């Protein structure tokens, strides 16, 4: 086990995103006095990513507003930041991290917050690079914003959260958007059908053309843009193409190090990997989630921040565990959606208010009556009160949940267990 580090010990954080920044900041605020090195592959100071598909893409957000660590803060907290430097190897025996330009640093405790890489599709080589986009980094967002400024038509491959948020932002610019999703419905990996259907209708009402349940057979360049051939023989043309088909966790380094992997780096409830000197957090880490009763790899803002904080404290001897109920949000067309738990596991939706009309919350129950999650539309307070109940192992009585005459704080509740 890692003992409380002395002032001559070194913590190294591999990664330059939100989780990496919170690990470094937390180590200092929790009293770590030794050397602290953060090594990021991106050239930017660590930043939060949610705005990249929303305000920042729109041009109303600034880099400063999303930056978590800058030269001043890093100097104050004595965090050495090596930016724009991919790590090429970690020697676990010698405990040395080496970067692409040959710099190296020895560690006592290592943190991997390497995040993920946007997936691409094969067959894109013939399409000019300036017409094909992914959205993961600040650079990606700036590049896409520039491209949208001169575009009339955008084709989005992938009807998940990134694809839909970019779609909503692009519609705000007046760009025509077509979304192609191979699954029969939108956000099918995380959402129940009632939410997928609502998102579908919402986007169509804003003039988006939705093509679901159809795969892509080919992508080719045209004189002025990109053409996509669909598996059903259809053909779509656009000026710009966005691939919103998810990320791959960046596990190359961890794999080379021989750490336990399972679609991400396997960690315990404190963020510890199969090597007790090495922790992982954020998009790359798969953790045991008490609420879900399963191991999860979450790609959310809250997970990146809070799992990182737990891991940093654990490395300093803390006993806290990461036990948050999964939570994330999306903003589309001026609506705030918040997702709690694992709503996709629900088979029965109980609406409070009218979420489909832009003000309410679906409580999702599974076949046994257990509340597994919720999706709120412009109803943050309902969701927050529900979170409190679920954290306490309770769930509202479904009939009471549906009755808005009962104030949300006074909903009768029951233990959140099987009802059979």
């Amino acid at each position, binding site marked *: 086990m890692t003992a409380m580090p002395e002032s001559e010990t070194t913590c190294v954080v591999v990664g330059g995103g939100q989780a990496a920044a919170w690990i470094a900041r937390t180590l200092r605020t929790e009293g770590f006095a030794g050397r602290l090195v953060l090594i990021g592959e991106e050239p930017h100071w660590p930043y939060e990513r949610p705005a990249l598909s929303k305000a920042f893409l729109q041009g109303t957000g600034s880099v400063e507003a999303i930056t978590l660590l800058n030269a001043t803060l890093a100097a104050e907290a004595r965090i050495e930041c090596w930016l724009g430097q991919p790590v090429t190897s970690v020697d676990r025996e010698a405990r040395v991290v080496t970067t692409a330009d040959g710099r190296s640093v020895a560690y006592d405790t290592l943190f991997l917050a390497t995040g993920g890489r946007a997936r691409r599709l094969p067959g894109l080589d013939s399409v000019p690079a300036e017409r094909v986009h992914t959205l993961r980094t600040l650079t990606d967002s700036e590049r896409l914003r520039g491209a949208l400024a001169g575009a009339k038509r955008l084709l989005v491959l992938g009807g998940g959260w990134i694809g839909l948020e970019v779609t909503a932002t692009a519609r705000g610019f007046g760009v025509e958007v077509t979304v192609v999703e191979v699954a029969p419905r939108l956000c099918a990996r995380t959402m129940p059908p009632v939410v997928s259907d609502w998102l579908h209708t919402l986007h169509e009402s804003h003039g988006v053309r939705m093509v679901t349940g159809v795969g892509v057979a080919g992508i080719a360049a045209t004189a002025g843009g990109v053409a996509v051939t669909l598996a059903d023989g259809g053909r779509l043309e656009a000026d710009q193409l966005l691939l919103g088909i998810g990320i791959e966790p960046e596990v190359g380094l961890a794999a080379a190090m021989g750490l336990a992997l399972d679609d991400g780096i396997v960690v315990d409830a404190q963020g510890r990997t199969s090597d007790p000197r090495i922790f992982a957090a954020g998009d790359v880490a798969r953790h045991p989630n008490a609420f879900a009763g399963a191991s999860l790899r979450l790609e959310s803002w809250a997970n990146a921040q809070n799992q990182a904080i737990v891991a940093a404290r654990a490395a300093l001897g803390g006993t806290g565990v990461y036990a948050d109920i999964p939570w994330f949000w999306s903003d589309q067309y001026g609506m*705030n959606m918040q997702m709690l738990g694992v709503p996709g596991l629900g088979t029965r939706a109980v609406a409070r208010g009218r979420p489909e009309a832009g003000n309410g919350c679906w409580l999702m129950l599974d076949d046994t009556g257990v509340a597994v999650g919720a999706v709120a539309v412009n109803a943050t307070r309902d969701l927050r009160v529900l979170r409190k109940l679920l954290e306490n192992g309770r769930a509202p009585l479904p009939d009471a949940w549906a009755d808005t005459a009962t104030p949300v704080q006074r909903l009768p509740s029951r233990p959140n267990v099987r009802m059979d």
Partner: protein
Amino acid sequence: MTEWHDAAATDALGDDEVMGLSIAGVPVALFRQEGAFFALHDLCSHGAARLSDGFVENGCVECPLHQGLVDIRSGAPCSAPITEPVRSYPVRVVGDRVEIALDL
């Protein structure tokens, strides 16, 4: 200069409740804790969210957008992602009215 402004009736809020007000154009979140009143600038120091839409518990208000915690009595940040304090305004009770002091 500092001026006292009428904000609300004392019975307009129960314990652990919050209301959003606009006083001389300034957004203010008025809280009641154990019978006493406290006022914070009604904007989270992290993101563009109204603290008066937040969740009150254990002397803190939780931002509705990002779940950061702010101390209701002082405006001090209590949890990530909030690192900057939220401005706190003086409050007094005159008869059955709550008044808030603003520097305008």
